[in-house]
């Protein structure tokens, strides 16, 4: 039953979505944690290694992300967070180890990989909306061309999603006409339109002006509450505390610590993490 709700949640009409969000508190997160434990693994990385030439950017990464789980990845610049995120949908190929999504190993480049990528939503730091297409076209392109959804149906659903992220009135505009926060919300809608099994976010708010960070985080918090499986590279502690089930601390290409957000921010186990936290917390 839980499975059903998670699987179909992006279909819920906006009202249903909103109702759930208003109740999104710590207790909501705990309820989700109960689900998560029964969720089963969705993304499994085993012994993943990656090099850029001589540079060893991912070192023996083991990471399991369960269905419905929200994992926040945090760590110093150059630690390999983006690379980790990008290997999960094979935007970056790996040099060793295995990555499985829903039990299936990532295929080689080609049709099968494209199909798999359709199941993995990705949100970039720089939004990357298609500059020559309207917001609505951005959101419907994937469903129409990859999922072969009928155009009217795709547009109807795109409008629902845009409504949900609060930019339905911008549907006919081009990306450059929108603010950063609006663009990022459009990018989230574009990813959601594919009905992904998991969503990857690579520093989704770090290119935004401070006043726009909240509007994007709110959408993400709602999404998490709805049961979406998420991997989020971010330094937004507010988000981590509100939504994350797990914090993964990465430095020098290694996972140094995996912890609950509560424990991690107040009582980190590793010295690397303590050191890092003292730096980001003091300003």
């Amino acid at each position, binding site marked *: 039953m839980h499975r059903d709700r998670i699987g179909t949640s992006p279909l819920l009409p906006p009202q249903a979505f909103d109702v759930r969000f208003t109740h999104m508190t710590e207790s909501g997160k705990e309820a989700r944690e109960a689900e998560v434990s029964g969720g089963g693994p969705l993304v499994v990385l085993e012994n993943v290694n990656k090099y850029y030439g001589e540079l060893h950017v991912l070192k023996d990464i083991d990471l399991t992300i369960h269905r419905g789980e929200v994992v926040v990845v945090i760590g110093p610049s150059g630690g390999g967070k983006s690379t980790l995120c990008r290997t999960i949908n094979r935007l970056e190929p790996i040099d060793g180890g295995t990555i499985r999504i829903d039990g299936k190993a990532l295929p080689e480049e080609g049709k099968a990989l494209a199909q798999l990528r359709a199941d993995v939503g990705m949100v970039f730091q720089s939004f*990357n909306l298609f*500059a*020559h297409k309207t917001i609505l076209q951005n959101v419907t392109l*994937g469903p129409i061309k*990859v999922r072969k959804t009928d155009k009217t149906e795709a547009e109807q659903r795109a409008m629902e999603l845009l409504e949900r992220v609060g930019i339905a009135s911008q549907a006919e505009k081009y990306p*450059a*006409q929108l603010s950063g926060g609006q663009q990022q919300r459009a990018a989230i809608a574009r990813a959601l339109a594919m009905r992904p099994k998991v969503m990857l976010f690579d520093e989704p708010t770090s290119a935004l002006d401070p006043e726009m960070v909240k509007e994007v985080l709110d959408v993400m918090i709602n999404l998490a509450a709805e049961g979406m499986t998420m991997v989020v590279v971010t330094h937004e502690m507010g988000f981590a505390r509100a939504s994350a089930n797990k914090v993964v601390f990465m430095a020098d290409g290694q996972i140094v610590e995996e912890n609950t957000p509560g424990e991690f921010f107040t009582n980190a186990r590793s010295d690397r993490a303590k050191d890092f936290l003292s730096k980001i917390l003091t300003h």
Partner: protein
Amino acid sequence: MNWDVLLDFSPLADNGDKLLTAFWATIRISLTVAVLSLLIGTLITAMRVSPIRVLRIAGGFYVNTLRNTPLTLVLLFCSLGLSDTLKFKISGTSTVNFFWLAVIGMSFYTAAFIAESLRAGINTVPMGQAEAARAIGLTFTQSLRMVIMPQAFRAVVAPLGSVMIAMIKNTTVVLVASYYEAASLMKDMFEQYGATLPIFIGFAVGFMCLTLPTGFFFGWLAKRMQVAR
């Protein structure tokens, strides 16, 4: 100095219908080459950015070869080489045959320049666009067709206009491939009336009537199609 001959525009007036026919031939070949060279140029560009190494090499080889060969040579190869030596015939009617041989030569030649412009256009499209396209599950060909190429084209509309203007002027060379168009008529008129200034001016103005609007059109299109980032 004989000022009468210098200012005598009557040869142009007397050959009005021939002029129209000749320039119509120029227009016909220009339009056909424009369409074909855009198709070939796009295909070559796709090869040059494809993930398959052999295609990339072949595309690069094509552009470098055609771009660095004189058009006259390409056309002579088409007319003499293809038609006379290799007996390659598109049609039994010789005028139709020469038209298409000239079109083939000019299209393959012009495509190299279009491919070069387009590749510059692709370089203006940020990496993130291709990544976002792949991330929503578009295949390589789909991303190229729906995301990268449309933006690359928009970025190079103006330079493509220059390629088109050069192409229209290059049609004057197809007389070596035996296709009769404006330049061929000019040559005939020179033989008949002598190379007078009015004939030069007449043909120059004729070509400007084709190239200036082309330039304005591409300039307008470039503005209209521009992608805001």
